[in-house]
């Protein structure tokens, strides 16, 4: 079920928030033992808030489309009175004393919080396999990863455990699980949504954003997460596909793809051309340097944040994340500075690629959801490490800070979702959403 479908019914009183929330909680009870999407389920608080929402609505007080809608929150983000574990035993005793800014905004919008979702520990991974609270599983194939780090969040929306969710994205952690689970994920422009009250991985690369069942739902969540002055009343209209100018990021972002992913994304490009979109090829000249720039920045930043606890309680980290954090401590300052110099160069190249087009287009994820435990996956050109493949298409836009959205564009023959990525101009997330609405509709009716 989508927020856009249920919100009018809740506002009209034809369905209660309590009923929707009960349904979500029942789905959690049914599926969570197998999929491990949630670390903390706040059933009593959710039902209390849902009943309160119903009373408010019945009394004529309507807070907007999220009023009474069950939402989950990635367990990296503070919700007052509940643990923020970051998926780690390092934080198992932690209880948030206040809401994160984004939590407060959603609470003020009337959302009902059903719980805190599982993630790759401290957001430092792309598969949600390394969590102090057990690995998470893809709902389309539980032998596979849901992607990460916001894996639990993606599972929650894909299965109806919550109707929307808030995730974070440092190298792709909203868009990767969205693609792996067949839903929409929006990484806003950097700094657009407050990260106050969110456990950091790399503050210069961290983004907070929504995952949802549709572009419209993602927009509704994103709108409510913004400062009040930036919100708009209405969902943007879809752009016209005829005349939509699409820049396909050729080269690096298409070089190492699974065959089904390539086929699906290229097929979508042909669909758009057939509907009158103007498609041109663009490139990022320093694309081959993106991964190493990203790596040195995220390692340096993570090393600083975890310095004390890596010394005092290393055994509380999952082994793989601990190893990567140990590695992070060896990054030299001179190499961190080299990476800092590369970051604005890549940002400028993304700006240049966007000149004369409305959006950039590329895959969101190079491969379908990988099997749990897989170290490498076969792609065009030979096998590649899973971590490298998972980050390849998304991390450029964490470095550049541009708004980027993943949306489903097809499935593999075995039913695994495939995601397409659209990247917008800075300062024009509205236009990105308009383009995404149009592309989503073209895909839906193909």
């Amino acid at each position, binding site marked *: 079920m989508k927020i856009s479908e249920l919100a009018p019914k809740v506002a009209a009183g034809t369905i209660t928030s309590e009923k929707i929330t009960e349904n979500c909680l029942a789905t959690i009870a049914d599926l969570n033992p197998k999929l491990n999407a949630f670390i903390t389920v706040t059933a009593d608080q959710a039902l209390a808030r849902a009943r309160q929402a119903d009373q408010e609505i019945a009394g004529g007080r309507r807070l907007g489309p999220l009023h009474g809608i069950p939402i989950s929150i990635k367990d990296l983000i503070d919700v007052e009175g509940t643990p923020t574990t970051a998926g780690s035993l390092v934080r198992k005793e932690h209880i948030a004393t206040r809401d994160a800014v984004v939590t407060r905004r959603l609470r003020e919008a009337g959302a009902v919080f059903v719980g805190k979702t599982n993630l790759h520990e401290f957001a430092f991974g792309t598969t949600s396999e390394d969590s102090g609270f057990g690995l998470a599983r893809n709902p389309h194939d539980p032998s596979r990863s849901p992607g990460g780090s916001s894996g639990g969040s993606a599972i929650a929306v894909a299965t109806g455990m919550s109707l929307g969710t808030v995730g974070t994205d440092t190298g792709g952690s909203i868009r990767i699980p969205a693609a792996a689970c067949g839903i929409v994920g929006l990484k806003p422009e950097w700094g657009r949504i407050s990260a106050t009250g969110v456990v950091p991985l790399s503050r210069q690369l961290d983004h907070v954003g929504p995952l949802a069942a549709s572009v419209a739902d993602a927009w509704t969540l994103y709108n409510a997460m913004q400062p009040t002055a930036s919100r708009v009343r209405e969902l943007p209209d879809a752009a016209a596909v005829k005349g939509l100018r699409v820049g396909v990021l050729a080269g690096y972002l298409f070089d190492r793809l699974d065959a089904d992913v390539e086929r699906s994304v290229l097929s979508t490009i042909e669909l758009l051309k057939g509907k009158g979109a103007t498609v041109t090829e663009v490139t990022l000249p*320093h694309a081959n*340097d993106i*991964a190493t720039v990203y*790596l040195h920045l995220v390692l340096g930043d993570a090393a600083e944040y975890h310095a004390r606890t890596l010394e005092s309680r290393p055994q509380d980290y999952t082994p793989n994340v601990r190893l990567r954090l*140990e590695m992070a401590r*060896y990054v030299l300052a001179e190499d961190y500075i*080299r990476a800092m*110099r590369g970051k604005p*160069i890549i940002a*400028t190249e993304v700006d240049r690629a966007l000149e004369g087009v409305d959006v950039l287009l590329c895959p969101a994820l190079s491969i379908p959801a990988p099997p749990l435990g897989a170290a490498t996956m076969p792609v065009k050109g030979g096998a590649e490490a899973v971590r490298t493949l998972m980050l390849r298409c998304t991390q450029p836009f964490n470095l550049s800070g541009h708004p980027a959205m993943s949306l489903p564009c097809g499935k593999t023959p075995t039913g695994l979702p495939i995601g397409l990525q659209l990247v917008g101009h800075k300062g024009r997330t509205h236009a990105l959403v308009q383009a995404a609405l149009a592309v989503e509709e073209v895909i839906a009716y193909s």
Partner: protein
Amino acid sequence: MTVAQWLALARADAEQRGVPDLIPVLEGLAKATTQLRAADWNDDSDKDLKDDEAVDEDQ
């Protein structure tokens, strides 16, 4: 120091701290650092300055 020198020191430190699992991970980082140091935006103090197009306000 060169990447090779860095890796030798890092390996020795990892062994001394009793974290031998770290060594293959450090070898992977060494490859990435080698690539980073080869990037064309890097400066050398005895060569011409690199243009910093990202902050060139005239462009």
